[in-house]
């Protein structure tokens, strides 16, 4: 296990030079006809232009996707090629569920810190409008057998044993393979075990919407959310996220029916992150290279940590395990942190993570010594989170990094803690600083 108390990050300091994303659109709306690769290509070509970066200077691309397209499983390399970037740019596709583009960012940062690269393009994408649809196992076996058959009779024979139900396509599940539980069920479980009330969850959702709506109104997002004229017609232009509700209210949220446990449940469509299409990108450089090229970075990576817990326990409690480590590696405590950005998979998960942060018992039980502390809600997700902005799995991490750094800038603050919970009981925590 890696040292939990490394005070100074090894290697070179990594600058985040630029961040950009597409608007995040609800599944099946504006980006309904685009693939995850289309979205990635759009954001990647644009970020390079906005950064006025010579593409020849890019050493590598680390890019991620959670629901891989069957035709383009190596998204990172495909992005390089589809965006018409120099073919010499080496590419690595990464995946860590909802923390995917945190992973792509830290992997890219490691390359730079260790001197393996100077300029790395990174980020992530997902289209929940274009998921791979599988054939049933029986049908796939039959198709395979048919392709091996030499005569028409042999080819036909392969399908003989198929039943009608084998012909139905199989959509991908948002469920844990190991436990069979869906994300929603896990969120429901956490709400019950941690005593998170429906009101508290709805209040978190409401704050998310209100903060995001304010962000959009004040023009905060304009600097890092691009406009996308949607191909192939290019006549509809996606200019902002379409899930945010300015008119959200406790009353409206309280009316929604629980989805995963209709009788005793508290998790609703209103206090959970929705299925979303979108892509995001970051440009990372070594601090020296950024200066040499005349960039003023958005900020720097100070530390990061990943942690995992039993997926059969509290699936989305990962941030509670990763955060103490990341803070310790940064040589900081929560008191040194100005703002907190947490991925809002579910409001119940946010409340549970915050509860664990503050819990002495949790800290002692898991060997962290002291608890992280109470997070001041006024410093949490100040311009909204995944519940209101949406959650294209692969794109969320880089969205959070970019938004966090722009929040620091617009509020003239210096440090921010970012966390993301992920499938499999995993969690990520990142500490960023502006100066």
């Amino acid at each position: 296990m890696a040292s939990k108390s490394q005070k100074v990050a090894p290697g070179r300091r990594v600058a985040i030079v630029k961040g950009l994303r597409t608007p995040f659109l609800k599944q099946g709306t504006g980006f309904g006809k685009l693939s995850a690769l289309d979205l990635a290509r759009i954001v990647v070509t644009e970020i390079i232009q906005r950064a006025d970066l010579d593409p020849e200077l890019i050493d590598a691309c680390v890019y991620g996707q959670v629901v891989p397209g069957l035709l383009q499983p190596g998204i990172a390399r495909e992005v390089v090629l589809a965006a018409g970037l120099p073919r010499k740019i080496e590419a690595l596709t990464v995946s860590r569920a909802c923390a995917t583009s945190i992973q792509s960012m830290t992997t890219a940062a490691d390359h730079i810190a260790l001197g393996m690269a100077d300029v790395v393009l990174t980020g992530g994408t997902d289209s929940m409008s274009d998921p791979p649809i599988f054939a049933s196992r029986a049908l796939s076996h039959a198709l395979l057998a048919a392709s091996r058959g030499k005569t028409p009779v042999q080819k036909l024979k392969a399908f003989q044993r198929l039943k009608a139900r084998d012909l139905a396509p199989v959509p991908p599940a948002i469920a844990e393979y190991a436990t069979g539980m869906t994300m929603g069920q896990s969120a429901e479980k956490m709400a019950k075990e941690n005593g998170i009330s429906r009101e508290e969850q709805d209040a978190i959702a409401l704050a998310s919407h209100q903060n995001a709506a304010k962000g959009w109104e004040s023009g905060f997002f304009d600097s890092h959310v691009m406009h996308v004229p949607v191909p192939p017609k290019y006549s509809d232009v996606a200019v902002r996220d379409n899930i945010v509700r300015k008119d959200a209210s406790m009353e409206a949220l309280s009316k929604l029916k629980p989805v995963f446990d209709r009788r005793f449940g508290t998790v609703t469509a209103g206090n959970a992150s929705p299925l979303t299409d979108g892509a995001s990108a970051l440009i990372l450089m070594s601090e020296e290279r950024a200066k040499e090229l005349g960039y003023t970075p958005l900020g720097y990576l100070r530390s990061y940590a990943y942690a995992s817990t039993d997926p059969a326990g509290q699936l989305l409690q990962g941030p509670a395990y990763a955060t103490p480590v990341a803070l310790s590696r940064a040589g900081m405590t929560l008191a040194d942190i100005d703002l907190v950005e947490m991925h809002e998979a579910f409001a119940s998960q946010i409340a549970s993570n915050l509860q664990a942060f503050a819990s002495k018992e949790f800290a002692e039980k898991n060997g962290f010594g002291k608890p992280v502390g109470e997070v001041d809600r006024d410093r949490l997700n100040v311009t909204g989170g995944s519940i209101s902005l949406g959650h294209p799995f692969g794109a969320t991490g880089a969205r959070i990094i970019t938004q966090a750094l722009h929040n620091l800038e617009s509020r003239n603050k210096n440090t921010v803690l970012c966390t993301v919970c992920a499938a499999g009981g995993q969690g990520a925590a990142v500490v960023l600083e502006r100066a």
Partner: protein
Amino acid sequence: MAAKNQQNAKGPFTYAVEDGVAVITFDIPKEPVNTLSPEVGAAFTELIERAESDEAVRGVVFISGKKDAFIAGAKIEMIQAVKSAAEATDLARTGQAGFDRLEALKKPVVAAINGACLGGGLEWALACTYRVATDHPKTRLGLPETQLGLIPGAGGTQRLPELIGAQAALDLILTGKQVRASKAKKLGMVDEVVPTQLLLEVAKKRALELAAGSLRVQRQRGPGVRETLGVSRGLASVFNRLKQPQVWQELALEDNPLGRKVLFDQARKQLLAKTRGNYPAQERALEVVRIGLEQGRRAGLEAEAEAFGRLAVSETSKNLVSIFFAQTALKKDTGVSDASVKPREVRHVGVVGGGLMGGGIAFVSASKMGVPVRIKDQDDAGVGRALKYVNGLFEERAKKRQLTRREAEQQAARVTATTDLSGFKRADVVVEAVFEDLDLKHRVIKEIESVTGEDCIFASNTSSIPITDLARGSSRPQNVIGMHYFSPVHKMPLLEIITHPGTAPWVTATAVEMGKRQGKTVIVVNDGAGFYTSRILAPYLNETAYLLEEGADIAELDRALVDFGFPVGPVTLLDEVGIDVAAKVGPLMEKAFGERLKTPTALDRVVADGRLGRKTKKGFYRYEDGKKAGVDTSVYALLPKAERKPMDRAVMAERCTLQMVNEAIRCLGEGILRSARDGDIGAVFGLGFPPYLGGPFRFVDVMGPAKVLSRLEHYQEQHGVRFTPAPLLVELARNDKRFHAD
């Protein structure tokens, strides 16, 4: 292998016997491409006869030693040098005899084709026993002779129809189009397509197989009914092929005399509709192919040689060849006189204004130059329109199979668009294509200069605003230049580059190089109202308005100029350009050149009526579903005189054309043009001046300056000052000189 070279180390051929195969390699020393001439032919005949008598040789392979080039055709200078039709006919007969000898060789000859196989090169290959071509993208086959006013003169008009059928052969011969190896295989022009690396190996193998009789050539020409029925890939594919009309046409038209008559009559009709009788080479080609089919190879070859001879000395051919040479010369022209000035590399292009022009410029930059392009437009809707247009052009290329879908997507991704100035900082050249308004363009210059580097070139796509005026609004006037593209940019071959007195030479050289990389033929002209092309178009369109005013019928007027050889008539052109645009340019010209280019008032009421042409779906013509649909006779009521009267088409054509020609001569006299050559190319490629006339200056040279002068004076008497002959023309006529030395 070098050790086996047995002779002619310094001649055009090397001869080596390898494993029973005589490999004859064609590689003219110190020439970039292989060309055909009687000397080369004689040397070749000697070698094949040697192979024939050499007991150790079973077959022959004929291959080129040039990298990615087989044979480019006959040497054009050689054809140009002939003094008489009889001499040219003899030249053709020599070629024919050489290839007859090749065809009659008692040992099989395999042509191994990699790179361009054109004209005489293809005729050469056609006389071989068997043809293997590589899948290299540079491998192209075709008979482009008619493009130069000639016909294939070494048996091509006979062997190609025999091999692939009259219809397919005529398609190639009459259009001069070049096909890739895969298409050539489909047509039956080549027997086999192989990877480049295996060419010689496979060719040698086939030569031996042919010699041994283990390979017998059975060719099905075209899509082939018999072949179709012989396909064993299942009924569906047979039905699919039977659905193709060519299959039936072939059966119905080519294999019986009556059908043939229908085929040729039809072809002739279609041809004349296009050429209006201005391009005799195509008509001769049709005739010669027909004679071959009806009376046999011997008669066909005789007719071919005869026709070739007459065409070789024709004015049309000389004019078309002059255009070809001018184009070739312009490819080497850097645009500046100082040879030490080198163009700078353009790695990133900015375009301001994402309309049809801006979008087109972005497209050729991304697709041909292969560089990233950043477009700036006013708002998201404009950005969307620009992206749609550019992506649509890529889509079209994918549909036509010129690019694979992936390639098209990747190239399209080079074009991004924005409403702000992001992405312009790195631009080496920014081309503006915004509305024609000096103040607006000055604002654009300021804005762009605020973000771009010191050495960024600012190019304007203006078609009428003097570049000197534009440069006045720049803090770096030495970087300002005009790059006048023509619409639609991806199709029109010309780029007119305009320098103002302060334009830095490296800026000119860089813009010229950029244009060439975009696939354009580039001329450089000096600044002045309307530069060259817009300026000579103005009196041409003015004359159109005067003719309409006098009572010319719209369809008749258009037909007059189309018959004369313009791609569209002048009234149609007004509709296409936009009647308001023409009306806007008019006063600029009048201001610059006074009475002579006074704007006619005839069209004022047409513009006031909102008839701006195609873009408003209302002009001189009616537009239905975006298509031109006949003259809108209601427009006559808006002209000064409503009634129409019959007018002589030849007079109408002459009046319009002389206006253009006379103005072109003024441009040369005033130093707007750097040479008559540039003037010819600009008019032909930018405005569609009839290519068979070679351009305005060739036109005068052929007709004789004195004759042109007298025609102008004739019209000057009738119509006044606007037909005042250009001083340079008067001078030439007086001294009995010509514009072109050759």
